């Protein structure tokens, strides 16, 4: 049976979430091309250097917050109900949180649009980090708050479904996909606490004039309490795909179920007490604190290195099942023509490359070479922009038929799409990293200054700008391919032919029964998470609020 036949109501929820995610990535991608053209100086006639910041804000919010969050809640809704083989108890609740997320998205997006469109009386050119005291319209903060609170509803749905399943199956191990979805949502609850307090307690009342001042350092620290863990909220759903579906797409099965659980537990526990590594350059935070969080940052490499092992091992196992031989020749036995496989394999490759960049960013002092330069967006276009986004697109080719009952259309376009994305990103991200090393700042509409010379080794800035723009166009072409495949599949008929894919997932070589049962005890891990947070964030937050929650304070300065 196909998912849509087993769970028609849930399938509709997933399709709705995906539809909003894909609309966001389409719009956000188009804005990305405009930014690339503007920054590099290829075209500055379409809008002003000031409008650039509203467009940049919209790009960041649509891609990093809207596309990711909607796709993730859709993916996990599929994964939880499929692996527990039970629907949600009350779909009205489910539609409720999805509606809340959608309302928040519309509010936030329209607020940003107001910066460009004269008759909308809002402004929100504050970028997706919205550091106070630059101030956006209250509707922007309200929209973000609704998006986050709505996504909490998704977590509630998954946890409730798990509890119900556990009551019926007291002695069984939690199915791996549900385990991963719940671990990720617990991480999401823990880390969004920071940004929720920042927005609801400080920024929203402050933008409404209810409180006169906020402490810029305190609000920024609350943002970064959330701001790095959020990348694991994006990444773990990609890992969910890499661990549970990718081995099957390679022709084999997962290497080790217990180690997959260990990896997710490590992420849950470690991913929040690392946020200060985004604040190495901040005054008012001690070097000791920065050092402590740097150490936890480097240790969070561990679960990713373990994942690299499992992904490659599962791939090799699959290749050998398909008749692959030799030390590396087995790579040829893999289904590179299938976009669901090739997209994920290329995403993994991009992630390996970006991991090394991340080690540079994480270095307490080495960070000064790259902090707030173009290197940083170059880095995260490889991580969230490729490892995560390309995985999501690739798995859509596999999931959408099961969610709609329709066979995938435009298969040739689909087969080319991941390669186009990868090549486009190699050009764009490489160029961004390199101008960043020369000191070119990020988040700047016209990074040319009379008084400043940027020395790029090997290639000139002009050549790197050409690579950036060329890469951006390839990426956009890839995005159009993806959207064409999705729309054409979606609008197609449900034919009589059976689907080419099915949702059956083979068992792991080493099953969950080989792992200690404490792994499934989320209570223990959540308590441990909060203990670590107390150590990592207790002292600095206590020091900041000691002289008053709102001091040293800044009044709003409209962006």
């Amino acid at each position, binding site marked *: 049976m196909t998912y849509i036949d087993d769970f028609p109501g849930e399938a509709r929820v997933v399709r709705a979430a995906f539809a909003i995610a894909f609309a966001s990535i389409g719009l956000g991608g188009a804005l990305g091309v405009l930014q690339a053209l503007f920054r590099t100086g290829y075209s500055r006639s379409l809008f002003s*250097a000031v409008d650039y*910041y509203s467009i940049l804000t919209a790009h960041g919010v649509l891609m990093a917050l809207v596309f990711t969050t909607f796709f993730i809640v859709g993916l996990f809704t599929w994964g939880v109900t499929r692996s527990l083989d039970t629907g949600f108890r009350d779909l009205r609740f489910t539609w409720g949180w999805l509606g809340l997320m959608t309302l928040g998205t519309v509010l936030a997006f329209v607020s940003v649009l107001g910066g460009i469109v004269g008759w909308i009386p809002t402004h929100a050119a504050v*970028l997706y980090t919205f*550091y106070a*005291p*630059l101030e956006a319209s209250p509707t922007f903060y309200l929209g973000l708050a609704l998006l986050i609170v709505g996504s909490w509803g998704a977590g509630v749905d998954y946890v409730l479904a798990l509890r119900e399943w556990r009551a019926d199956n007291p002695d069984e191990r939690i199915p791996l996909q549900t385990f991963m979805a719940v671990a990720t949502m617990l991480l999401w609850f823990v880390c969004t606490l920071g940004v929720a307090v920042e927005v609801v307690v400080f920024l929203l009342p402050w933008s409404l004039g209810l409180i006169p001042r906020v*402490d*810029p*350092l305190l609000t*920024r620290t609350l943002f970064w309490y959330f701001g790095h863990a959020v990348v694991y909220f994006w990444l773990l759903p990609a890992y969910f795909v890499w661990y549970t579906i990718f081995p099957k797409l390679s022709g084999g099965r997962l*290497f*080790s179920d*217990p*180690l997959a659980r260990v990896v997710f537990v490590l992420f849950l526990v470690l991913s929040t007490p690392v946020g200060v590594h985004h604040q*190495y*350059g*901040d*005054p*008012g935070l*001690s*070097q000791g604190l*920065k*050092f402590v969080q740097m*150490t936890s940052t*480097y*240790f969070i*490499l*561990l679960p990713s*290195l*373990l994942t690299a*092992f499992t992904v490659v*091992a599962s791939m090799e196992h699959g290749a050998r099942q398909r008749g692959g031989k030799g030390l590396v020749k087995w790579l040829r036995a893999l289904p590179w023509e299938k976009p669901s496989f090739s997209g994920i394999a290329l995403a993994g490759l991009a992630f390996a490359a970006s991991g090394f960049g991340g*080690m540079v960013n994480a*270095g*307490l*002092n*080495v960070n*000064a070479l790259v902090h*707030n*330069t173009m290197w940083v967006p170059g880095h995260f276009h490889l991580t969230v922009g490729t490892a995560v986004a390309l995985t999501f697109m690739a798995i859509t080719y596999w999931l959408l038929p099961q969610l709609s009952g329709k066979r995938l259309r435009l298969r040739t376009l689909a087969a080319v799409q991941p390669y186009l994305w990868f090549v486009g990103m190699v050009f764009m991200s490489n160029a961004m990293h390199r101008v960043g090393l*020369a*000191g070119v*700042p*990020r*988040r*700047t509409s016209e*990074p040319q*200054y009379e*008084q*400043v*010379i*940027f*020395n790029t080794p090997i290639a000139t800035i002009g050549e790197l700008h050409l690579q950036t723009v060329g890469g951006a166009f390839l990426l956009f072409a890839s995005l159009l391919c993806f959207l064409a495949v999705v729309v054409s599949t979606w609008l197609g008929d449900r034919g009589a032919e059976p689907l080419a894919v099915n949702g059956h997932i083979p068992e792991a070589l080493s099953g969950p029964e080989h*792992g200690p049962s404490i792994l499934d005890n989320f209570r223990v891990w959540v308590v441990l998470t909060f203990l670590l947070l107390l150590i990592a964030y207790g002292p600095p937050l206590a020091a900041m609020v000691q*002289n008053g929650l709102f*001091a*040293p*304070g*800044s009044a709003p*300065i409209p962006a």
Partner: protein
Amino acid sequence: MEIHRLEKIWLAVSLVFIVALVASIVYGVAGMGVGTVGDTGQQLDPNGLDQTRFADPGGHWVDDDHYVVNVVARQFLFQPGTQEPIMVPANTTVTFYVTSPDVVHGFDVVGTHLNAMVIPGQETKLTTEFDEPKSYGIVCHEYCGAGHQSMAGQLIVVPADELPKNGSAASGNATATNATADAANASAAVAAPEVSA
């Protein structure tokens, strides 16, 4: 729990790698003295900078081998830095204090380790030593509003005897033209300033 032999080896190598990464940073901080911005313990009222060291921004000698520069980063210029260059002596300990009366800014001396945030209510303290006369660009690298793309400045390192010991930074302007020429003539070797809190 069963763990494959190869995976055990991978795990061990990964752990060693992580420890080595942390150790390399420790060596950089403790062995080479290259740290990052810390906490000076000093907080400021962004609206009351005239009561602080930032009342009269600019550079001055605090003793024979220590030069201090107080910089105000505001929408959309550095004072000093944008309208007149920041002048600092070569082969001398130089400490920068930077703050902001309005929004968050960045203070990045391009091509050096001097790269930090400027946050209203806090003071950013950077200490370094420049090896030779040279001219550097300064960029605000945190989005700070509509004019952010224009926020930049210049830092000129001059021989220590060109900065009068008893005058303010303003009198240093008289020698700015000369110093710029000197800096342009200076060798292009990259200085590696040390940054510490």
